[in-house]
């Protein structure tokens, strides 16, 4: 299955990655290379085969719904590109 420029632009939107005009062509080509590789899967008969998500067929352990993490807000916010008064700052969303 080969993808075109419109699909690449849509993927960039979904993945929130800006694909500049000068990169559209090379990105499309290399992603098509990968999709050509993975298209080999289409020839395999997998009727009735259960998908394997965890290699040991394990399910996630559950734990009690109690707070176990300490409050590290100040430490975490010290890492942020912009934070103020305990809040993360981003460009204005609503005018």
């Amino acid at each position, binding site marked *: *299955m080969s*993808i075109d420029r419109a*699909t*690449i632009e849509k*993927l*960039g939107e*979904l*993945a*929130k*990655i*800006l*694909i*500049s005009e000068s990169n559209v062509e*090379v*990105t499309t080509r*290399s*992603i098509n*290379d*990968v*999709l*050509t*590789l*993975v*298209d*080999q*899967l*289409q020839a*395999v008969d*997998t009727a009735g*085969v*259960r*998908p*394997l*998500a*965890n*290699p*040991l067929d*394990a399910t*996630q*352990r559950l*734990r009690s719904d109690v707070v176990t993490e300490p409050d*590290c807000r100040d*430490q*975490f916010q010290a*890492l*942020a*590109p*912009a934070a103020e008064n305990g809040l*993360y700052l*981003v*460009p*204005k*969303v609503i005018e």
Partner: protein
Amino acid sequence: MHQKTLAELREGLIKREFSSVEVTQHFLERIARLDERFNCFISVTEDAALARAREADKTLAAGGAPALCGLPVAHKDIFCTRGVRTSCGSQMLDNFIPPYDAAVVENFNDAGVVVLGKTNMDEFAMGSSNETSWYGAVKNPWDVRCVPGGSSGGSAAAVAAGMAPGVTATDTGGSIRQPAALCGITGLKPTYGRVSRWGMIAFASSLDQGGPMARSAEDVALLLNAMASFDPRDSTSAERAVPDYTADLSTDLSGLRIGVPREYFDEGLNPATEQVVREALRELESQGAVLKDIDLPHAKLSVPAYYVIAPAEASANLSRFDGVRYGYRCDAPADLPDMFKRSRAEGFGDEVKRRILVGTYCLSAGYYDAYYNKAMQVRRLIKEDFVAAFADVDVVAGPTCPNPAFEFGAKGDNPVAMYLEDIYTIAANLAGLPAMSLPCGFVDNKPVGLQLIGQYFQEARMLNVAHRYQQATSWHRRMPPDID
């Protein structure tokens, strides 16, 4: 000093033949002198290392020291280290200083190690050559024109060049075994869930597994003893006791059944590599092991299945890098969508972006069944091949890689040519099986790796085979030429 194995350094420390400060200084001096040539380290933590070494010397003098007390190691820069930058080889995390230690780092600290620094890697562990690192590629100590393999190339080359006697690494599709093979050292990817993923920056969570690298199988066993644990903070951590991986290293190989997959000796395998690997199998046979041909009919599908599953999981895991809470943010964003899109476009390199886009495509409406679900079905077929094979054999053996180390730029701009270098390693990740690589000879003066794949949680059996092989051979003792 740097030619000694960890086991030998440990004995010397316990007998007080030398101090941890002396050992640590020796390796720090080598890093300072040699790393300009090889680019193995992203960060060197000299002061903290010497402080830890002084502490270790006191503990060693007092007696009752923990298992790895005073031994220097380096961590792949994918494991979070409190107060020390953890970049994952990416500009995205160039300024990221974690406020906590990964479980693996905690375990090693509890075992008494001295941390020399953080090693270079392919960006977010996506690569087989180390060429995707934002900090520049690592050079192969055996031939600086060649790649060290990836993604744990800095870890592997640091051991090969004698800049660290043991290191941590991670393996999602071969990232421990392939660089171990290309750099002529020993590395082990444990069973999925054996080593905690807590604090290990996620790439593809159903495949990622941390593991150790060192010169010898005995050293790898020592490191795995400290590294493996059950950790309730990792929701897929294996809830079972950790055995002593050194206990059965010397067990006789008589009657051991080794499965040799026909598919791992196909036309894609370099004939000179095949010869070296066959010779290694004959050595195991001469020690009493029985070689049996086996079939893994779906093995050839592991690369295509992986390049759906790993990118799909990566596209979800890497969505957290948005320029809001930590990591890179672009300059002067016009609005919120512009901030997300430019921060990610500028902060990630080409290979990471390619995989996120492929993963996004495979998970998008209308394609999920054709790609993601199909790949997970093929994943089960690949696993069932191994389950069937292990009914008749104890371990599987073959080449780690189809070729020895290739030159920088050799794979051109087609990503698939690079992906095919992992053709023999990926299946163990898809199946969740433990696997390792150990040096077994040379082609064109470049190291070749023998791969062993074990039954679930039978790491000790593989280590036993590897140790017996290393007792009879000296490939793991070879050092690259021209490194003083």
